[in-house]
C-alpha cells in the first residue's frame, strides 16, 4: 500500500502544527479553499483538513492542524520521514476569487491557516487585501509574517490584548468599514461563532460574505451526508457543495449544534491517547 510521507513538521504554537505531506498528484491540482481527508493509521478515523498550501515542485501538500482529539494527537506524534496511511484529495470546490478588486480576509485561530492561501491567491491576482487575524492570546499567534506579506493592510487582534489590539475581529472589521473601505467581499474563516458574528455584522453593512465550513465528515466524497448543513433553508453538503458558502444564508446555530455530537468521545479518546504517549515516555 502506498503511504504518504511527512516531508516537514513544524510546531507553529503549542497546539498547532504544520506538516508537509508528500502527495504530488494532489499538490498539482489543489486550489485554495479545497480540503483533503486523511487517516493516520489502519484503525484511524477519516478527518477532513483544509489545504494550507502546495508545492508543485516538491509534491508537498501543507496541512495545519490544531490538536483537539485523538486523531490530531496521533498525527502530532508522527515525525518527519514517517508516513501516514491515507491522504485523499483535493476535495470540495475551490474558493471563487475571480473579479474581486478589494477583499477583507478575516481569520480566527487555526482558521488563519486556511485563510492564508486565499489571501495569497487574491494578492497574486492583484486584489487589494485587508487581513484581520484574531487569536485568544499572544502565544497562539501564527502566520503573522505570511499575512503581512500578502496584505496591503493587516490588523492583529487578541482577546486579552496581549498582542496587537485587544478585541474581536468583528471590532476591527467594523472599524475598517466605517473608515470608508468598500469591500467587494469579506472572506471569513475561523471558529463557527466568529463566522456567525462576522456575518451578522456584514449583513448590517450589506457586504457579501463567504465563509468556509469544516463540519464532521466520514468519506468526504459525497456519500455519507454527515456534513450537511442548512443554507438558505435548503440542505447542502459541505463536501461537494462547499466548503465555501454565502455566510448570510448559513444556519450557524444548527451547524454549531451538529459540530458537538461526538464531543464526549473526542475528549475521552484524546485523554486515552495522551495517557498512552505519557506511558511510553515514562
Amino acid at each position, binding site marked *: *500500500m*502506498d503511504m504518504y510521507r511527512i516531508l516537514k513538521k513544524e510546531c507553529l504554537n503549542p497546539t498547532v502544527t504544520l506538516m508537509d505531506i508528500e502527495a504530488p*498528484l*494532489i499538490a498539482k*491540482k489543489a486550489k485554495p479553499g479545497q480540503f483533503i481527508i486523511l*487517516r493516520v493509521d489502519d*484503525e*484511524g*478515523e*477519516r478527518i477532513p483538513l483544509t489545504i494550507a498550501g502546495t508545492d508543485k515542485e516538491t509534491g508537498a501538500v501543507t496541512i495545519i492542524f490544531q490538536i483537539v482529539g*485523538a*486523531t490530531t494527537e496521533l498525527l502530532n506524534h508522527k515525525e518527519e520521514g514517517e508516513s501516514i*496511511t*491515507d*491522504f*485523499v*484529495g*483535493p*476535495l470540495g470546490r475551490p474558493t471563487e476569487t475571480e473579479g474581486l478588486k478589494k477583499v477583507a480576509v478575516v481569520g480566527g485561530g487555526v482558521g488563519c491557516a486556511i485563510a492564508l492561501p486565499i489571501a495569497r491567491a487574491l494578492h497574486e491576482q492583484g486584489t487589494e487585501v485587508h487581513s484581520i487575524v484574531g487569536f485568544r492570546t499572544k502565544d497562539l499567534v501564527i502566520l503573522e509574517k505570511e499575512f503581512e506579506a500578502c496584505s496591503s493592510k493587516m490588523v492583529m487582534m487578541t482577546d486579552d490584548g496581549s498582542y496587537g489590539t485587544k478585541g474581536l475581529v468583528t471590532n476591527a472589521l467594523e472599524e475598517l468599514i466605517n473608515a470608508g473601505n468598500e469591500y467587494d467581499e469579506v472572506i471569513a474563516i475561523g471558529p463557527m461563532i466568529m463566522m456567525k458574528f462576522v456575518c451578522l455584522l456584514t449583513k448590517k453593512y450589506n457586504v457579501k460574505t463567504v465563509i468556509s465550513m469544516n463540519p464532521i465528515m*466520514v*468519506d468526504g*466524497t*459525497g*456519500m*455519507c*451526508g*454527515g456534513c*450537511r*448543513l*442548512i443554507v438558505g433553508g435548503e*440542505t447542502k*453538503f459541505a463536501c*461537494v457543495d462547499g466548503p465555501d458558502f454565502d455566510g448570510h444564508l448559513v444556519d450557524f446555530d*444548527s451547524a454549531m*449544534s*451538529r459540530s*458537538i*455530537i*461526538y*464531543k*464526549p*468521545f*473526542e475528549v475521552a*479518546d484524546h485523554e486515552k491517547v495522551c495517557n498512552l504517549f505519557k506511558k511510553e515516555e515514562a
Partner: protein
Amino acid sequence: MPNMSLKKNEMPQQDPNVRNKNFSEVALGYTEEQALDEAQRCLGCKARPCMKGCPVAIKIPEFIAKVAAGEYEEAYQIISQDSSLPAVCGRVCPQESQCEKFCVRGKKGEPVGIGRLERFVADWHRENVKEDPVVPEKNGHKVAIVGAGPAGLTCAGDLARMGYDVTIFEALHLAGGVLIYGIPEFRLPKAIVQAEVDNLKKLGVKVETNMIIGKVISIDELMEDYGFEAVFIGTGAGLPRFQNIPGENLNCVYSANEYLTRVNLMKAFKDTTATPIIRSKNVAVVGGGNVAMDAARTAKRLGAENVYIVYRRSDEELPARREEVEHAKEEGIIFKLLCNPVQIYPKDTDDKFQKGFVGGMQCIEMELGEPDESGRRRPIKKPGSEFDLDVDCVIIAIGTSPNPLIKDTTEGLDTNRHGCIVTNGEDGLTSRPHVYAGGDAVTGAATVILAMGAGKAAAAAIDKDIMNK
C-alpha cells in the same frame, strides 16, 4: 435419480437472539451433505430457464451438475467464467426474483437453492484451493475503471481475463464499494470481499485507492495523459436523500449511508477503532428497502432495545428482499407499517450538550389509495392520526441521488434530470467516445448483481471498441 423433495435444504443460521447481539455472519452456509442433496434437486433442464434470470448468465445447470458429482473446483471454474464475485453473489443476490424465479422446480414446491449452492462452491474454493489463477497473456491495451464496487470489479475482472492492463481507481481507502461500506459484516463478511479483490489482483488488476477521479485526475487526463484507451465509470450511488421535515438536522439523525459507513467501513462497532458512533436506545429507521433492513439490524446489534422500521406502505410493498424482512423480524425489529414521519423533536432539556439531539419523532398513519405512476398504491395520510414514537435516533434510508463529482468535471458527459449518467443501453457507452458507465451511477440505487451485469456488458463492449480501433 434427482432428489424430488419439494423443499430446499434449509440454510443453517445463527439463532436470532444470539446473532442480534453480534456481527458474525447470520447464514452459516451448507455443509457438503446439504450441498450434495440440494444439487440433486436440479433437473438439468435443456432449456436452462434459470440462466435467463441471471444478469451475468452463469451456466447454472452445468455448475450444479458438478456439485452433484462432488467436483467442487470444477463447479467453481464454471461459475468464474461468468462471475468475478461468486462468494458475494451467493450471499447478496435476490435469487428469488432472478435465477430461482424461473427454476422449473419452483412451479410445484420450492426452486433449487441456486444461490446457496453458489455460495457453497465459492466458499469451498476459497478454503481449499490455494493456487493462484493463471495470469492471462497481456494484449498491451490499458483500461481505467473508476470505482471499485460491484460494477467496476466485474468489468475489471472480465477485461483482465481478456488480457487487458486494468487499473481500478477508488476514492475510499479500501476497494469494494458498497460491499465494504454498505452491506454489513453479518450479511457479507469483509474478509470475503477482500479475498475477491485479492483474486482480481492476482489476475494482474491494479487497484489505486485514495484516488478521487474528477478531482485529482480527470477522465480526460486518464485518456490523454495516462494512456488509457477506454474508461469505465462505476462510481455508484451518491448523496443520501432526506425527507425535508423539521428536525432532520438534529444530532443522531443519520443517513443510512453514514450510519452503515461508520460501522462497516470504519468499524465503529469495535473498541479498537477511532471512528465514533452513538449507541442509541430506541431507533427509528425510515424506509423499507434492503438498506433500511441493514441499518435496523445494525442498530440492534449496537445494543438498541427497540428498533422500528417506519414505512409508509404495507408489508406487501416492502421493497426489501423477503429474506431480509424475515431475518429482521426474527431479530426483533418492530415494523411500523403504513406510517410516515412528520417531524423529529429535539430533546426537551436545558443541558446545552443535549439540546440539539433527537428526543422523539412524530408519525402519521397512512392508508393506500389508487396506484401511482410507479404502479404501487399511493400512500395517503389519515387526518388526525398523528402519534409520537419514543426514539433517540432516526436513520433515514429512503434512497440516494447520484454523486456529482464526475458529471461536474467531465465535459460532454450527458446525465439525465436525476443526475444519472446516460448510456446507450445495453453496452454502457456514454455520450463520450470510449467512456462507458454502469451500475448505480447509471440506474440510480439498484442491486449488486445488476451493477455486475452492467460491468460485464461494458467489458465486452470495451473489448470490441478497442479491438476495432
